[in-house]
């Protein structure tokens, strides 16, 4: 039943260069993360060379201040960035969906309260709040995930609520009600199929935000101290003043480029998904 709808989305997604490009990027990063142990020439925690070695045949991107191979660090870092981004995005979308659906479907006072809450959360300057929270509850993988998702559920919640509101007034939902179909069937057959694609595009966008936020937190020294994400690598590069020397080319440039490319991968996929779901935008192209 939903098959043809998904087929249509898939067609639009792949017929659209931007979306296809984004998807390919995501697949590449997924592969890198999975194959990091095979791809990386060294263990990123081992001191394998002299500190501050310039790129050469052995260390393609040189070594850092303690002699670890930067390339290997980057390849392993993919795992952290990708994982945090995806998990945090997943939790925040889950929260967002819950709030959005409850708010949109039940309306009334529940809706008013939840939407006020969303407005509140949206006013708060979120990066400083994260810094505050991260500073107090201490840096760790799960704390970062928690902090990111606690603060980024609000805007997806709003988007999903408005989608539920639109779906609720659709004639076919009214019709199903007037036929005597019970509420569970209506939710499952008519509402959810309309919410899931939106939630998906929101998820993809949220993932790109989460990756950026994680990078920022790690850069401020609030990342997980036991694993090195791309943000952490840049934190050390900053702390050692690498960006003031020639080392910026192999130490500062690559991690940032990787973050940017991954975020672009998510963002392109997300925007083209959004375009598919928003007929008005689609028409104007």
């Amino acid at each position, binding site marked *: 039943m939903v098959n043809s709808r998904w087929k249509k989305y898939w067609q639009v997604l792949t017929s659209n260069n931007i979306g296809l490009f984004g998807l390919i990027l995501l697949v590449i990063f997924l592969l890198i993360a999975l194959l990091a142990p095979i791809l990386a020439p060294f263990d990123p925690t081992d001191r394998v060379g002299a500190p501050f070695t310039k790129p050469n045949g052995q260390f393609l991107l040189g070594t850092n201040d303690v002699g670890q191979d930067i390339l290997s660090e980057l390849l392993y870092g993919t795992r952290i960035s990708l994982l945090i981004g995806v998990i945090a995005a997943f939790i925040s979308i889950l929260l967002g969906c819950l709030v959005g659906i409850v708010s949109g479907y039940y309306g009334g006072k529940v809706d008013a309260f939840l939407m006020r809450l969303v407005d509140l959360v949206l006013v*708060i*300057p979120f990066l*400083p709040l994260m810094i505050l929270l991260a500073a107090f509850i201490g840096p760790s993988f799960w704390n970062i995930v928690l902090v990111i998702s606690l603060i980024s559920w609000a805007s997806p919640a709003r988007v999903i609520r408005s989608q539920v509101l639109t779906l609720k007034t659709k004639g076919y939902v009214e019709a199903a009600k007037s036929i005597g179909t019970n509420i569970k069937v209506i939710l499952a057959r008519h509402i959810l199929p309309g919410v899931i694609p939106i939630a998906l595009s929101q998820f993809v966008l949220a993932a*790109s935000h989460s990756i*950026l936020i994680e990078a920022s937190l790690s*850069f401020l020294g609030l990342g997980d101290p036991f694993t090195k994400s791309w943000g952490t690598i840049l934190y050390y590069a900053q702390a050692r003043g690498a960006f003031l020397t020639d080392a910026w080319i192999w130490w*500062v440039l690559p991690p940032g480029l990787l973050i940017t490319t991954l975020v672009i991968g998510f963002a392109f996929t997300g925007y083209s998904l959004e375009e598919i779901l928003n007929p008005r935008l689609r028409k104007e192209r």
Partner: protein
Amino acid sequence: MLGKFITGKLLQYFIVIFLMLTLNFLLPRLMPGNPLVFLAGEDVGFMSSAEKDAILDKYGLNDSILEQYGTYIKNIFTGDFGYSYQQKRPISELLMERLPWTMLLTGLGLVLSTVIGVMFGAISAWRRGTNTDANLLTVFMFLSAMPSFWVGMILVSIFSAQLGWLPVFGAESAWSNYTGMDRFFDIGKHLILPLATLILISVTSTFMIMRYSMLNVLGEDYIMMAKAKGVKEKVIKYKHAMRNALLPVATVFMLSLGFTLGGATVIETVFAYPGVGRLMFESVLSRDYPLIQATFLIITFSVVIANFLADLIYPLLDPKVGSRNG
């Protein structure tokens, strides 16, 4: 209508401030560990017990939690943010020193990024479907994908370290004692890179909203109508379309205040720019908890005040909110 709009917003902001104050109050008291560490910083280990007692007394830690809360609120509203035991100075003094720099940086950053975003967003929408539109879209999407601190680092690497054109860090040259115009130019020179970074990372949201909103407006019947009336293309663009398209931008502008101030925290860190954000970073590094909290509060206050100012301006743009009998 107008009154309702403003009072509704005011209430919302009061709740935000109240919640953030409460969060701030509770965080050090609820976290496991010695609350003294959170109230006075990590140096408590080196303090004598007399000193510790003095601090406990100052924060009224031996009072009931409600009394503590009362004192806390009273202190905040009398401008007493506490004392930084790390820096050995009252926190309000530190904040006052840093606030002007942050205001300079983010104020300029917001205005410029909004203007630039609006301009390019409008151009992109006017030329929808062309290469110009596609190129602008790609460029802006790339911009929004870059981590702010990294953009800053790269700019420093290129323009300061490699080319030597601009200063590396700070808000003005130390020990130079410039005065008058010289000082002005010196500050300007130091401002260029952080400002550029801030604009680069915050311009995309305005661009996207403006483009989208402009596309919608251009599809409206009244634009077609203006054309049919014989109104010149330029007048249609600037008079009829622009103001309508700006309405959603104004809303996003408010939402991006928090984002921009947050972004400024990171950027100030990269450039060692002596603003509130950098202060926050420094206090995180030295685990100076009272200072972390105070900087967070001051940033929240600024966002709320800026939001409120924007709310006051909004009705001037939208007659539906502004009209007396609407």
